[in-house]
């Protein structure tokens, strides 16, 4: 093989290696810097009164008793902010027809969900603020509420925003081929099922938190927050608090989990900023766990009725479904709450050769907490509907689930291609990942074990999913629709006088290892040891402009920018070195902190000496040489709206058919996220994601009463996955780098969460099939399984 030397084929190589995260040490020693750790001089604490009703007219407040409470500095109600913040509306122009009503940080005239902030107390301590909140007498007049998704559009359901005339927020129809013609053929088997996906929420262990400081002498607002998109928040705060954008600094130090929860505009956070500005003192707001449940965005809450048509040999001829989703009383600002439904319409069945496709989506308002983008937006629904129908069809025609996938997956050698819903795909590997999965999981052995177990009355099931994951979005995702959300990211790489690199990036770290992979990329591409790379992220004053970390975009977009900047700086340094050493710069290289002779590897000058010469003894350089030991590059995806990844996953479960309890025995994921920068970090993204997906499949649900009260807003009652019930998860990789970048990395953050629910549901149904039972409602609780079995 005589391939050209790739940028990664270099001596001190880090890309592709499981380098431990340097910043993990800090966290292991209790030296994290989370927002609630911050204590500023004269800092005050906020607490909110939230609507106890899902829908209520606000007739007024008696605040006298609350004002008299110890420690109270200020009390605000919604109307007090009318002149200090401008309303926001969660719509985007490219989501044609999407409508939502203006929102203020706290409800002014009508509260539209249980948990919506309606008044705010700022006091010397959080405890005192809560004491005063308890003394506020709010005159709320309950209104009829529209809580149920499936009846939201009925004529006799109350309309939440009267001006709209109905509770419809958005609808879209995607059609390709001739679906009706296929379903009327008599040579196809048609399977129709209704899938229900419960509401769940992110439950970041660190709740949302912000500390806001306003300095009137400079008209400058500093916003420390636990979040994923500092520059987006900068633009939003500047716009709605009427501040010059450059006077708003947003800082995100350590973030205790986010998963999409911390990427939206929350009224209580904005109110905290307004209060800090009005009071000219720092104000801290940390959501408590109850507030998190009633105000962090929720996700899913879909009802999908779908049908699939297959021929006798297992060829999928058509897919047709209707998705109905409830988003709460508003579309969330600024990303909107139509994206999840849009993803469902775009992605369902995407791994399969499919020409006849019809997908209808309707997004409705309801008097429940807002729904918006949470890890794997839309994917769990899309994958469970498609692969659920595929498995049901396979069973109906007597074809093995692995085999029906082989017959229908888009072949690996047919890219680029366009899906029925119009998605452009390239560099995917559905066949390779499925083959690897079947082999690694010993599929045939598991089938044999399944048969043996059934004879003993033990019901085990195997569930597969083949999936695509949206990653590395281009400006077509948000920016095109008018959102202040950057699809491009920047990286700056600077050589310091000591010979170390200081790098900064606009992507952010929430524990996934962003800072580590940035250091890996810079160290390798530039040519220094990794411990000589210092990384700065999460500070709008100190990093290049960019989008942050979400939609599995950090490594692919931010990583590519870092690669480009590191390569640029390397070229710049070698130019200087060439002059200092009177050599052709092309004959030189940088390795392990020194400029070396590229052929022999012999050291010519250390980076430290080079930098010190440039910085301290510029007199030694010719006067026309103006060295730049800093480089900045930006990167965005241009060729595609999204760079997709794919994976194949499998769940092995045992259903206790007497009790309805499901135990996940093992889980396998074969992931193709393109170039793997750090295998350990990717594996851990997949594992954590899978467990969140198992949570959605088996445990997690925001349970509401009919009148819109969240009934399980505690961690004892909302069931997140804990260690005792979770399986070990085997992760494997197929690497098909994307051709859209030099780095070749796609995203890996969401696949597990997107695919696991489908795999687990299919496995449960595989286990139940000999008993004639099936379940298409998540979470698949013991009671629901017992109902499916006809036992209760």
């Amino acid at each position, binding site marked *: 093989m005589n391939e050209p030397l790739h940028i990664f084929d270099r001596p001190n190589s880090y890309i592709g290696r499981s380098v431990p995260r340097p910043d993990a040490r800090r966290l292991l020693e209790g030296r994290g810097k*989370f927002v609630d750790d911050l204590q500023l001089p004269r800092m005050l604490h906020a607490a909110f009164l939230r609507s106890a009703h899902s829908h209520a007219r606000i007739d007024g407040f008696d605040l006298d008793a609350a004002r008299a409470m110890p420690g109270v500095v200020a009390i605000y109600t919604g109307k007090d902010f009318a002149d200090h913040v401008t309303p926001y509306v969660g719509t985007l122009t490219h989501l044609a027809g999407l409508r939502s009503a203006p929102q203020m940080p706290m409800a002014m005239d009508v509260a539209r969900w249980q948990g919506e902030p309606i008044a705010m107390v700022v006091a010397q301590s959080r405890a005192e603020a809560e004491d005063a909140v308890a003394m506020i007498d709010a005159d709320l007049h309950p209104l009829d509420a529209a809580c149920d998704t499936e009846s939201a559009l009925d004529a006799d359901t109350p309309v939440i925003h009267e001006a709209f005339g109905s509770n419809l927020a958005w609808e879209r129809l995607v059609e390709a081929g001739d679906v009706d013609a296929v379903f009327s053929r008599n040579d196809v088997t048609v399977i129709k099922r209704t899938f229900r996906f419960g509401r769940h929420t992110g439950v970041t262990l660190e709740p949302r938190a912000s500390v806001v400081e306003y300095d009137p002498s400079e008209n400058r607002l500093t916003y420390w927050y636990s979040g994923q998109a500092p520059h987006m928040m900068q633009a939003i705060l500047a716009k709605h608090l009427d501040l010059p954008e450059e006077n708003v600094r947003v800082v995100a130090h350590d973030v205790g989990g986010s998963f999409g929860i911390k990427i939206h505009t929350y009224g209580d956070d904005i109110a905290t900023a307004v209060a800090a500005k009005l009071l000219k003192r720092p104000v801290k707001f940390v959501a408590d766990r109850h507030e998190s449940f009633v105000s962090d965005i929720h996700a899913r809450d879909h009802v999908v009725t779908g049908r699939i048509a297959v021929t006798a040999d297992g060829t999928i001829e058509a897919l047709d479904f209707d998705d109905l989703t409830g988003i709460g009383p508003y579309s969330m600002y600024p990303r909107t709450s139509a994206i999840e439904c849009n993803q469902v319409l775009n992605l369902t069945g995407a791994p399969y050769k499919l020409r006849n496709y019809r997908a209808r989506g309707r997004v409705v308002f309801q008097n429940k907490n807002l729904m918006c983008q949470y890890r794997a937006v839309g994917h769990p629904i899309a994958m469970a509907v498609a692969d659920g129908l595929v498995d049901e069809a396979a069973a109906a025609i007597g074809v093995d689930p692995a085999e029906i996938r082989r017959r229908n997956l888009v072949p690996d050698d047919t890219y680029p291609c366009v899906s029925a819903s119009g998605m452009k795909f390239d560099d995917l590997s559905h066949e390779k990942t499925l083959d690897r999965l079947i082999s690694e999981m010993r599929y045939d052995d598991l089938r044999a074990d399944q048969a043996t177990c059934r004879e003993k009355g033990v019901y085990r099931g195997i569930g597969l999913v083949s999936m695509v994951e949206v990653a590395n979005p281009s400006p077509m995702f948000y920016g095109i629709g008018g959102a202040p959300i950057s699809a491009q990211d920047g990286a700056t790489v600077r050589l310091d006088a000591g010979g170390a690199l200081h790098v900064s990036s606009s992507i952010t770290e929430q524990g996934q290892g962003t800072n580590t992979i940035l250091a890996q990329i810079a160290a390798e591409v530039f040519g220094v040891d990794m411990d000589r790379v210092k990384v700065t992220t999460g500070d709008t004053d100190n990093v290049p402009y960019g989008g942050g970390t979400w939609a599995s975009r950090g490594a692919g977009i931010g990583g590519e920018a870092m690669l480009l900047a590191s390569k640029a700086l390397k070229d710049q340094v070698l130019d200087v070195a060439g002059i200092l050493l009177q050599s052709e710069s092309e004959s030189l290289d940088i390795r392990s902190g020194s400029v070396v002779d590229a052929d022999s590897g012999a050291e010519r000058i250390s980076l430290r000496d080079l930098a010190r010469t440039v910085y301290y003894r510029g007199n030694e350089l010719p006067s026309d040489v103006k060295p730049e030991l800093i480089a900045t590059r930006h990167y965005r995806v241009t060729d595609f709206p999204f760079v997709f990844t794919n994976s194949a996953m499998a769940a092995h479960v045992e259903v206790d058919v007497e009790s309805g309890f499901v135990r996940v025995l093992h889980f396998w994921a074969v992931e193709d996220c393109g170039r793997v920068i750090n295998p350990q970090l990717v594996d851990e993204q997949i594992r954590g994601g899978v467990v969140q997906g198992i949570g959605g499949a088996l445990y997690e649900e925001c349970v509401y009463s009919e009148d819109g009260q969240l009934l399980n807003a505690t961690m004892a009652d909302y069931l997140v996955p804990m260690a005792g019930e979770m399986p070990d998860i085997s992760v494997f990789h197929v690497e098909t780098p994307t051709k859209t970048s030099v780095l070749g990395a796609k995203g890996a953050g969401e696949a597990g969460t997107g695919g696991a629910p489908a795999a687990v549901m299919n496995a449960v149904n595989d286990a139940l099939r000999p008993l004639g039972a099936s379940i298409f409602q998540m979470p698949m609780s013991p009671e629901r399984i017992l109902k499916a079995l006809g036992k209760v």
Partner: protein
Amino acid sequence: MTQTQTISLTINGEAVTATVPVRSNLVDFLRNDLGLTGSHVGCEHGVCGACTLEVDGAMIRGCLMLAVQADGATVTTVEGLADSPRGQALRDAFHRRNALQCGYCTPGMLASALEYVEAGRPADRAAIREHISGNYCRCTGYQAVVDAICDLIGQGAKA
């Protein structure tokens, strides 16, 4: 007026005397009054485990014990562990296995893991999972944590 009491206790080897609101729980006192922000607050109702720390040799929930109840007690937080050799091998194993992502559950997870390892319990994955089942981690999916604890016990190393 908020009721207060004066307490004296030993925290990470240091004698501390402080006047605290009686309603303040131990973890709020450590974090807000003493700046020991390594212990985290995740739910304030004893379920998530983020505030798990050691009082008089037992791992407890810092949100379900009042600061005044710690009068006379010996308290060790994640900062105290980090300043001593105790737990070093465990921290190394967590680091190697990437048994933490965001790090918010980590102080509590380390406390529970340390209790397991120091009790001389075996490298039994199910038993380890059961023991840490009161520590919520949203990031890792738990496997790396189990791996790290198993590694350490398997090496026969002291935590």
